[in-house]
């Protein structure tokens, strides 16, 4: 579904702030994989997602989505294949527009937009039904401006928007990190349900190691712009937070030795 081949990305090259964010990254995500991504700050998790989405262009290497080389495609064209939810709940929705207007924007992802009316009554029925499944009461507030919603509600709505048109790949960039624990849990449950119901290929970045183990069928750990640990299936299920912590410690001690 997704192939990353020999990816390199350097920020601020040639300056004192030079940062080798991604170095020779190779990664293949199989159809239907739900991969959780962990790693320390600056490990390259978010950068990897942003490179896939086309927010940044790669310095070297190629990105294939469903066999198609999208390396040179701009962000808005790649959006046809991708559903995205960001860490900041404000980022995924247009606050000054209504809930249904936001959904109508998402419903047309990957399609041409012309002078047809921006939202039809048939769509409204569909949105109402989808919102009902979130179980947040949003189906009764469809014309409310999104800025009136809480962070958790906005993330749930963004998640719905990201999957309204089935994406080839769902990118979740710490999408529960800004929420309180209870709300985060609820959004994660909704995520898990939507992903499994639609058999979505998913990359979920998280800082919560328990969640990384509990959700998905595969886990990767990143460090210094590369993948240093990749487990799936039974082996992943049997992981413990302590195993992951130990690996983190190993990395840090390596760093100490090098220093």
């Amino acid at each position, binding site marked *: 579904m997704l192939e990353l081949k020999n990816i390199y990305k350097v920020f601020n090259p040639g300056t004192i702030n030079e940062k080798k964010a991604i170095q020779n990254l190779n990664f293949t995500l199989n159809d239907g994989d739900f991969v959780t991504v962990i790693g320390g700050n600056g490990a390259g998790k978010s950068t990897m997602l942003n490179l896939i*989405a086309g927010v940044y262009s790669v310095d070297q290497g190629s990105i294939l989505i469903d066999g198609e080389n999208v390396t040179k495609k701009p962000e808005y064209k790649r959006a046809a294949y991708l559903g995205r939810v960001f860490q900041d709940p404000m980022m995924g929705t*247009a*606050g*000054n*527009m209504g809930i249904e207007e936001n959904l*109508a924007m998402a419903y*047309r992802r990957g399609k041409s937009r012309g002078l047809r009316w*921006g939202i039809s009554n048939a769509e409204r029925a569909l949105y109402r039904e989808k919102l009902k499944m979130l179980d947040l009461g949003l189906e009764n507030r469809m014309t409310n401006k999104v800025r009136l919603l809480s962070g958790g509600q906005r993330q749930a709505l963004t998640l719905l928007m990201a999957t309204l048109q089935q994406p080839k790949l769902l990118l979740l960039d710490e999408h529960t990190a800004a929420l309180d624990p209870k709300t985060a849990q609820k959004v994660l449950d909704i995520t898990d349900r939507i992903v499994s119901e639609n058999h979505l290929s998913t990359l979920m970045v998280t800082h919560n190691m328990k969640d990384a183990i509990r959700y998905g069928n595969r886990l990767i750990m990143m460090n210094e712009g590369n993948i240093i640990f990749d487990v799936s299936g039974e082996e992943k299920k049997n992981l413990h937070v302590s195993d992951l912590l130990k690996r983190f410690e190993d990395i840090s001690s390596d760093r100490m030795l090098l220093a």
Partner: protein
Amino acid sequence: MGGILASIPGATAQGLIWGVMALGVYVTYKLLDIADLTVDSSLCTGGATSAMLILAGFHPIVSLLFAALAGMAAGLVTGFLHTRLRIPAILAGILTQLGLYSINLRIMGKSSVALLRQPVVISLGNIPMALAIGFLVIVAVIAVLYWFFGTELGCAIRATGNNRKMVRAQGVNTDSMKIIGLVLSNGLVGFAGGFLAQYQGSANVNMGRGAIVIGLASVIIGEVVFGARFNFAYQLSSIVAGSVIYQIVIAFVLQLGLSTEDMKLFSAVTVALALSIPTLQKKFTKTKIAPVAAGKE
């Protein structure tokens, strides 16, 4: 006092004409979140185009269409500078504005042209007629804007002014949306320029100076007086009402003896005060909850 009352119909007609321009400013400033300074010159480009075409024997209505097209071309240049060449929007607008000054002089061949005894669609020589035509045009423009910003494309433009990252994630080219918005906005401003030139019977190279400020004043007055609420058509209408109020206030202070040389200073101070209302409200009304801060709808 009688003089003030007598000046109201004329000021209202002028407010309707400037209202078309204010709607153009609203499209960029409020919907697209870009302060586009192109309008200070594109208003004159429209006025000059319309005046010269009328003098060349074109029908005044046809000349208005070309005035709108000329404004759209100006918006396209600003859009190109901003999106393709990555020049900050405010600077891109200033550059187009400055360049247009020369172009406007070229169009007219001199700094002003008069439309003496020429056919026009609207004129201050017949105020009741000017009011009727101004009103009809405003209704038509609001209807078209209401429709356009309800379409898929219009929604994408509104969303672009709201959250560009989200819009790109939904597969929309935000650069194209900005260009369309700038073209549409300056098309309205160009049309308003042609309309204004016909109304006052002349076009001159300084006719658009401070237009952005007048546009902003109309948007803000409209929101403060009528509130940014209800539907989109109401909001658009409130801007035109804001424009009319602004022109009446101007007529009023002129009657009170403010000299025309001091007009621009008066306008600048008024708009600066109006723009600072949300901040001042927050500062001085700590106890009671401020109504939805004006200008932040």
